[in-house]
């Protein structure tokens, strides 16, 4: 196995090992406020990721916003085949965790260093909850 290009240590993590394309947001996330839950597109006007799709992505969000809805919504978007592979939060709230555990989606909280310093949207990354690390495997372009 090749050496990762960068490694992020995580504070807490749940779920299985996943590998995929990073989608890095400078803004927080709520599945009910920001997401079209039929297409997987971030539709909230003015959201930094407006127009982007979360399907099969490793989604980095600094914060979780509002919303009890994630509890059901994550399982719903997974059943509709538009779910991301993982949610990577700087800080999260219990609903996101309850929803991800319920849906079987990998979720982590807390990072060092901040991914804005070492991950860009489009990079290929691996999330390993048991080892509490994210590894950047390939750079975009």
């Amino acid at each position, binding site marked *: 196995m090749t050496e990762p290009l960068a490694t992020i240590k995580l504070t*807490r993590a749940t779920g299985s090992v996943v590998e995929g394309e990073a989608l890095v947001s400078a803004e927080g996330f709520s599945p009910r406020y920001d997401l079209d839950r039929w297409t997987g597109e971030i539709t909230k006007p003015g959201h930094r990721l407006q127009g982007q799709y979360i399907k099969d992505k490793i989604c980095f969000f600094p914060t*979780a916003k*509002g919303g009890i809805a994630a509890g059901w919504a994550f399982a719903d978007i997974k059943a509709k085949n538009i779910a991301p592979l993982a949610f990577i939060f700087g800080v999260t*709230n219990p609903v996101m965790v309850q*929803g991800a555990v319920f849906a079987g989606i990998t979720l982590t909280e807390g990072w060092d260093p901040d991914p804005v310093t070492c991950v860009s949207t489009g990079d290929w990354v691996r999330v390993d909850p048991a080892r509490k690390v994210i590894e950047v495997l390939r750079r975009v372009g």
Partner: protein
Amino acid sequence: MELNTEEQAILRGEQGVAAQEALAYQVKVGEFFEAQRFVPITNAHMMGDIEVLGDSGLNYLKCMAEKRGHCRVPATTNARCFDFDYVDYLGQDRGEAQKEKKVIQFLRDMNVMTTDTCINYQTLYQPHLGEHVAWGDTGTVIYANSVFGARTNFESGPAALAAAITGRTPEYGFHLDVHRRGNFVVEMQTEIHDLAEWGALGKLVGEPNQYYFAVPVFTGIEPRPTADQLKHLGAALASYGSMGMFHMVGVTPEAPSVDAALGGNRPSKTMTITRADIDRVFKQYSLGDGSGNLVVFSGPQLSLFELKTLSELFAGKKVAKGTQVFVTTSNGVKSAAAKLGYLAPLEAAGVTLLEGVCFYILQNLSPMRVANGWSNLVSNSAKIVNIIGAHKFNTILRRTQDCVEIAISGRLK
């Protein structure tokens, strides 16, 4: 997590498959947060409507009901996405409405009381200081923690249902003293009155401090707020800030003084809120295409007191031609309002009162927006103007009186 004898028995399946699965799920969530143990709860409040459940959630409820899932503590439901009397009026999907009826049946099969209200804390159950409950939506949680001094985390639908079935919840977050202490101070330098101003305060404090464990300590609040004002503040803090608790010195039970509310924490900062700050919130909304054809009083559902006020403001008036006004409340409040004569003036004015729903979660809302030619949404709820964004409304926060005037004139101001 350390499990007691009973919990170990539940995990072995001795209280049925539904309880076994529910507890196993709770253990996983508890372990994420490094919870040491479970705490018994007395009450659960859950979100479960077809709009957010989807077919997968509906199927899950069906399976849990078939596995004889049974709530062992009183469990109530949050607002849902259909008022069945208005399905055709709103152009909602009849098939989805049928599914919503199934949701309700499966929940009742599991001993859930389908009360369909997001103001359970005003109308159904008021837990006392230190009482552990498992509640969602976020507005109910922040009210329980802050105003009652009860203890709950944001419990999403599956988590609250699991808690109701097992009668317990993992002890983390706001069940623990350490997270209940204030960590920054908000000094009020102005009086605020209208519900929209209380929501604006929640936006000002919540937006720049988005964090579940950010616990603001409000000082200088004069005069004493009403329950409805605290409701709008809490709903906005939870919505903009993802917050689950606040203190208000001299008002909330764990805040007899600033020091007591901080509990030994050094505040990370002190914010001051002036009249100019509050007024600035109202000025920042774009008027979009200038249309004033949708005014909404919802999110949270209205109390009997709010409904009485609206009834008085609309009495003898007519909603402008081409403008629609929606009010949402619970069955209990609507029934009382009808009996007390508060509904008739609203109906005569042309206001549509929906029961058991919240506007922003209405099934089919995006197509409804397009079909009705709505682009602007005017409301006195800071929460709803924040959360309805995914449906592509341009939202505008206005004070209650202004909302009524816009509804009557059809013109923005």
